[in-house]
Structures are given as structure tokens and as C-alpha cells.
């Protein structure tokens, strides 16, 4: 099996590329892939030859999000019973959200604090983790057919940071993802400020490469200084507080009570399997 996350470097161009390589599953992240992505970021951070990191997906999509088949095992590691309990403890839930996503070792925290310039090639489905990769990177070029959504929020509520989302697209647009289960096509994402440009799909690799090479012309110290300025601005926007709130509320959101008649995705997953559960979710929430 080829690596699900692989990293290539062009030292002469000062550009590295992290590729999400699970096209048969629309590049849905497994927990192992999240950890390997974090490891790749950490490795590249220490490589002084690299100025720019390009993030791309193999196949049609950037990423359809976290693999729903792994949702049940998401909290297993933090439980004393090793995840054998029917209901994971709250501490396990809180630990998982902190360690995987929002805490200092988590994917999104690492991405926001990355000292290199990060450029995302967004295409196909950019859902959940895919959307967050766009949000927490520096620059995003989207293919015309790309779409952006947070489907999990319709199931359990907002279990992630919204400070960066509001800063990018404005409060009213952010609420469309939070409460209306909206899916934004690339053009809307560009109008709202989530992506920096939209190009025809075939031109995406060249457009991203051109942007990465342009960024790589900046002096290393200049990049470091600019990224520090960005981080200082994000601190004023209370992004750290947003990440802390995401760790806590993410844990709570995974354990909500479903009333009769409410759509329970995890139950659907258990009863019907991933494919049918997703189709039923799309039908319930009016997603195409």
C-alpha cells in the first residue's frame, strides 16, 4: 500500500508538497493520516531549505473530511478501558479533540503556527478537515468544481473553532455553515473570502505552482517576520481562545442527546454503514 500521506521536496525551488493520497475514499482522513500529516509538517518546519509547503489531494478531491468509519474509534485511545466501553468517557472525548486538532500538537494548531508559507490546492470535496486545511493555511487556490462544507456541524453542532472562519468570511456567512448545512461552490467561497482565487480545474496545478514559486522568492527572514505578524494579528482576533473553546465544545458535541425524530448520524452509521448514512444525512439536511 502506498503512503496515505506523502511528502516530496524540491530543495532547489524551496518548495515541499504534502499529498493526501487516499483517492478511493475521496481523501477522507483516517486518524493515522492525521498523525502522519502532523509529522510531515513537523519535519518540514525544521528544514531550512523549504520556504513553502503546498498541500494537495491525489485524485478528484482535496479531502472529504474525517473518515466516518473511524468516528467510533476516535475516542478509544483516551479511555482507561482502551475504548471497549460502549460510551467513551468525556475525558477521552476532550483529549481526542485537543490532541488531534486544536491543541499545540494538533493538526490545525500546527498549520496555523507553521513557519513556512502554506498553499492549498482546493478541488472537488473540501469538507470538514478539507475545509479546515483551507481555513488554517495561508493561501488557497480553488478549482472551479471545488465545494466547501462542514457536514458534521449539522449532526452535532459546531465542534470547531469559528474565530478564523468569521475572520475569513464574515459572521453572517459563517453562520450559513454553522446552522444551515450550507455547501459553498468555489465561486461563492472566493466571493466570501475563503479562497484567494478560482481557476479552471486543469489549470489548478500550474496556478498553485506559480503561486508557490512566487512565495518562495521571499527571503527566509521575511517569511518568518510576516508569519509572526500574522500570528500576532490572530492573537488579537482571539484565535487561541477559539481553539480552546473548540477543544472543549468538540468533546461535548460528540456526546449530545438526540431527541425522537432528530437525525442521529452515529446511529445511522451503525445501522446502515458509511455510504448509506451519508446519503441519508444529505437527504435529511437538504444537501445535494
Amino acid at each position: 500500500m502506498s503512503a496515505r500521506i506523502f511528502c516530496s521536496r524540491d530543495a532547489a525551488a524551496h518548495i515541499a508538497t504534502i499529498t493526501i493520497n487516499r483517492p478511493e475514499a475521496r481523501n477522507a482522513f483516517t486518524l493515522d493520516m492525521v498523525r502522519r500529516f502532523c509529522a510531515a509538517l513537523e519535519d518540514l518546519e525544521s528544514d531550512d531549505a523549504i520556504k513553502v509547503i503546498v498541500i494537495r489531494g491525489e485524485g478528484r478531491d482535496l479531502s472529504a473530511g474525517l473518515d466516518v468509519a473511524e468516528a467510533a474509534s476516535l475516542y478509544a485511545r483516551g479511555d482507561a478501558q482502551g475504548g471497549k466501553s460502549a460510551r467513551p468517557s468525556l475525558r477521552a472525548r476532550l483529549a481526542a479533540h485537543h490532541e488531534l486538532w486544536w491543541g499545540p500538537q494538533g493538526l490545525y494548531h500546527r498549520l496555523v503556527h507553521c513557519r513556512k508559507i502554506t498553499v492549498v490546492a482546493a478541488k472537488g470535496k473540501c469538507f470538514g478537515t478539507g475545509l479546515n486545511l483551507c481555513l488554517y493555511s495561508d493561501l488557497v487556490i480553488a478549482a472551479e468544481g471545488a465545494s466547501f462544507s462542514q457536514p458534521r456541524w449539522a449532526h452535532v453542532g459546531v465542534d470547531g473553532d469559528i474565530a478564523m472562519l468569521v475572520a475569513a468570511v464574515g459572521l453572517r456567512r459563517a453562520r450559513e455553515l454553522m446552522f444551515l448545512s450550507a455547501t459553498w461552490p468555489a465561486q461563492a467561497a472566493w466571493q466570501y473570502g475563503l479562497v484567494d482565487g478560482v481557476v479552471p480545474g486543469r489549470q489548478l496545478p500550474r496556478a498553485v505552482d506559480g503561486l508557490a514559486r512566487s512565495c518562495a522568492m521571499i527571503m527566509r527572514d521575511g517569511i518568518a517576520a510576516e508569519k509572526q505578524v500574522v500570528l500576532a494579528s490572530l492573537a488579537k482576533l482571539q484565535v487561541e481562545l477559539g481553539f480552546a473553546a473548540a477543544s472543549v465544545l468538540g468533546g461535548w458535541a460528540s456526546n449530545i442527546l438526540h431527541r425522537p425524530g432528530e437525525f442521529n448520524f452515529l446511529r445511522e452509521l451503525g445501522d446502515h454503514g458509511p455510504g448509506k448514512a451519508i446519503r441519508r444525512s444529505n437527504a435529511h439536511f437538504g444537501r445535494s
Partner: protein
Amino acid sequence: MITTRTKDGIATITLSDCRLLTRSDVQEGRALADALQTAGDDDGVRAIVLLAQGRDFCPPVRPVRSQQASLPDIQSAYAGVTGVYQSLAYGRKVVVMGIQGRCTGAGSALALCADFVVMGSSARIQSPFSSVPEASFTLAALIMRLNRAKGWILSDEPMSALQAEAAGLANRVVPEGRLRREALGMARSAARMPLDGIAISRVMLETYLDSQGVGKEFDHAPFYRNALPQAGLPVEGRVSAKQSQPARGRK
């Protein structure tokens, strides 16, 4: 007068005369705040639609100072934690507002606090900052971005529905005849979420708004009120009979 009708988990709150809110009528303010809180506390309600009767959501009105209402009463009814604007901005349920015709004063201040805004295609929305001390500039900047919000506050020119949509102030623009249906459709969409999920999302939103200073800005409203032109206006009853006439439907 404020009326509330609940059907299929959606509470529709209708204002008969939004100008009373622009004039900081205490009774009207309390009635709207009560309606919002009652719907927010009701587990049978999953989303709220806020509408106004008539051709205009909130037409312009000459501001007057109320003869009887004390500043603490006005503060309690409008800017306080249980007042109109915080009940809307920090409410427990998703609120979709449908705007037709002219929207000024309190109507525009409400639009800043609602979760979603649908505008009729010929609707126009004017900055509320010269007439409503509780209007939140922080919310305007978070919704529209800083420069657009500054442009809006400094200009008396109403924004067209399409301009409002481009600025991020309106989520959707539809023909006037479809306004109510569209607002209800958005509310139904929000109502498909689990109630606990809505609650989690509202807590996340409240945390975020507080981190940005929205709550503090409501606390400052009494100071803004003293700085507004109304402070120097004649009290109600000393203006012409037409200007001070209570609007129709007033309790």
C-alpha cells in the same frame, strides 16, 4: 404590538410597528424581548422568524424622547442582558429576519443581531448608528468587515438589497412575494439540527462574540445614548401631534 405564532417548530414573531422600537418605547421593547426569550426557552421551538407588517420593515421616524420612560427602564428593555438586542444576539435559537421596503433605525439594529437576513429585492437598509445607541458597530464589522462597516456608518445612504448581500449583511435577496417563504425555508433548514447541537453552536457563538467585545459594547449603550441627537430633542408631547401620535396597534 408583537404577535407570535408557532407552527412545526418555527416561531414567527411579527412586529406591527417597528418605529416604536426606534423610539425606544419601553413597553414595545419589553414585549419583543419577552417574545424572543419565550421562544428561546421553548423546546418546541427550534428556530425563529422575525417579520414586520406593512410595506416597510422599519420606516424612518423622527426621534423623540419619551416623557415617562426613565433611562434605566430603556436600558433594561433594549441594551440589558434581557433586553431586545442581547436577547436576539445571544438567544438560544436561530433567528432569520425578513426585510421588506425601508429598514432604518431599530430595524437595522435588529438586522445586525439576527443570525440570518433575507431581503426583498427592492428593500433598502440604512445605518442605524445615528438613531439607535444599542446598534453594535462590532457586530457590523464582524458581519461586513471593517471598511464596509465604516462606510455604512459614515454614509446616510441606504444600502440596496444587492449591495447588502455583496457586503455580507444579507444572506439572500428574493422577490418581495417570496420573502416570508424564503425566511421560513431557512428557519426550517436550521431546525433540522438536533436541539443539543443548536445549543452547542449557540454557546460557541456566544463565546466568540464575547471574545470580540460585543457584550461590552451593549454595556456602553447608555453612554452612546447621551451622545445621540435625541438627547437635545424635545420630549414627547411637545412635538406636533402627528409626530408624537402613537403608532397603530400599540398596546
